[in-house]
């Protein structure tokens, strides 16, 4: 896709008064490869057309040629700010299709990791929002926090970014014994950092001027556009999939859904901040309730014991005929984990909103169709609505608040 003069001209065929301008695909404010074709009258945006697809990787096509566990690796690469939520979202969808139950310890571990990942996503999102509007130091502080979170992810999953942590029916290994200590150590200091960021931004004159009343969406518009996540909740709709369709063990935990009525960029910032405080609440409760605790002395399972779906323990593979057969069936091409014929649409609450997986199974080891419903895709479609008729600098502010991740936008 080259930058052809024809497409620029198409933006403004009658350009006597107006100026056609490209923002991106390489621009510091786009955080990835996004391109906005805008038509300006002075500094006011008359027309805006987002062009996406620069990071299209064909994940959905690739999914038809990978078995269910192999797709977990691909799901990492979609939202690279919160890969764990993608792992978990896909695993939840598969378990619904297979009809497998994850044991309580696995569920609690997943919830803790999902919420830690939500913290990592939201905190960086707020930092970048500050950076785009000129408050660079907030971004540096939030990056430090994300590094600490990545250290925890590394201890649990073995990787910082490409976690590939879940498997169909559970997770690939138990958390290390010091996991609760690590998380509690982090949580002891994290709220103070949130307060600091809030001090820097929430009453900051420049930040407020550039956020309040910018990019306002009404409730009806947001619902019609299929907007989800913090954006929808900033429009006053208390829709959170963790409450509306409780998956894992979210129904056993006590938390609230923060909403704001305004629907502007500032409201999104406030919702994200409040959501982080709720996430901390969830993590603390889940750590208290974690079956087996950190040590897991009783050796409670983290994955389903249905070894037609999950790999049996290695020592059993070497000593037990049946486990050897299960291991062979799961790992050999052409056998694999076989779901029944049918189709499910399963969604989870990712940091950006509803992350849906629509799986069609034809009863073989490979999915017939993997459809990913990325939150960023439908959130970003509101961009023209939000910026048309506003100053060009507002486009930067709106874009930062959408937290569009090009990897999941283009898949």
């Amino acid at each position, binding site marked *: *896709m*080259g*930058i*052809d*003069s*024809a*497409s620029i001209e198409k933006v403004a065929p009658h350009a006597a008064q107006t100026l056609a301008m490209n923002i991106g695909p390489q621009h510091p404010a786009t955080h990835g490869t996004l391109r906005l074709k805008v038509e300006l009258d002075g500094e006011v945006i008359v027309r805006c057309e987002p062009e*996406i*697809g620069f990071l*299209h990787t*064909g994940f*959905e*096509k*690739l999914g*038809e*040629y990978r078995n269910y566990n192999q797709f977990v690796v691909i799901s990492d690469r979609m939202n690279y700010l919160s890969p764990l939520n993608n792992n978990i979202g896909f695993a939840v969808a598969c378990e*619904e*299709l297979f*009809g497998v139950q994850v044991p309580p310890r696995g569920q609690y571990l997943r919830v803790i990791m999902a919420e830690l990942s939500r913290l990592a996503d939201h905190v960086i999102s707020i930092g970048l929002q500050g950076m785009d509007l000129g408050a660079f130091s907030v971004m540096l502080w939030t990056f430090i926090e994300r590094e600490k979170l990545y250290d925890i992810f590394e201890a649990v999953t073995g990787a910082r970014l490409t976690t590939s942590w879940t498997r169909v029916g559970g997770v690939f290994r138990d958390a290390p014994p010091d996991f609760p200590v690590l998380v509690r150590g982090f949580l002891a200091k994290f709220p103070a950092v949130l307060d600091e960021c809030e001090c820097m931004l929430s009453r900051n004159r420049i930040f407020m001027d550039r956020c309040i009343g910018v990019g306002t969406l009404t409730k009806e*518009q947001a*619902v*019609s*556009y*299929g907007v*989800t996540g913090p954006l929808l909740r900033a429009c006053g*709709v208390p*829709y959170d999939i963790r409450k*509306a*369709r409780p998956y894992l063990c979210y129904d056993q935990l006590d938390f609230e859904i923060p909403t704001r009525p305004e629907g502007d960029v500032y409201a999104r910032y406030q919702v994200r901040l409040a959501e982080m405080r709720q996430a901390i609440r969830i993590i603390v409760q889940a750590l208290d309730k974690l079956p087996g605790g950190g040590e897991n002395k009783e050796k409670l399972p983290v994955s389903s014991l249905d070894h037609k779906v999950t790999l049996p323990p290695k020592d059993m593979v070497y000593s037990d005929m049946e486990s050897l057969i299960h291991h062979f069936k799961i790992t050999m091409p052409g056998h694999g984990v076989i779901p029944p*014929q*049918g*189709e*499910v*649409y399963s*969604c989870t609450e990712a940091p950006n909103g*509803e992350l*849906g997986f*629509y799986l*069609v199974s*034809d*009863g073989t080891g490979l999915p*017939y*169709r993997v*459809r990913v*419903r990325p939150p960023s*895709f*439908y959130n970003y*479609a*509101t961009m023209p*609505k939000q910026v048309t008729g506003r100053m060009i600098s507002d486009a930067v502010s709106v874009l930062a608040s959408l937290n569009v991740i090009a990897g999941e936008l*283009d*898949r």
Partner: protein
Amino acid sequence: MATDLAALVASLKTRFGDDVLGHTEFRGQFSVGLRRGANLSVLRYLRDEAQFEMLTDVTCVDSLNLPPEMRKEYPERFAVVYQLYSLSANQRLRVKACVPEEPCEIDSVTPLWEAANWGEREAYDMFGVVFKGHPGLKRILMPDNYEGHPLRKDYPLKGRGERDRFPKYTEMPER
């Protein structure tokens, strides 16, 4: 909740008759099949009367390689799949409108939901289903000059050599 949905699906059958091809239930999820011409009217009814305010996703399934026992859900080659969600009743419903290979077109639901705009563009890009009445139906993920529709089942995983035929920078038109 499931009984309500079952009642709703049954009422769709009496209301729209032959336009509703049938329904399936799997893991507690309902999915309703539609004839091609009926998608706009049935979805309008679902949005306005049955309070499915939100269209969470539009996509498409190519049934070319499906095993015969699954074909009755997909009487034609393509099915455009709408995932509906009702905020007020907290219910989900899947609606599948079948589209034949020729003519590969169906009415757009952009008059009902703004979300359909990009969703249908992606379905057109990936499957070649033309949405009639769409305000700006063009490719969204693939380049504008791309040939073929990558998520069709007869499209090979590694492509048809587009990568080699991609215009080089020097061959681009002068700016």
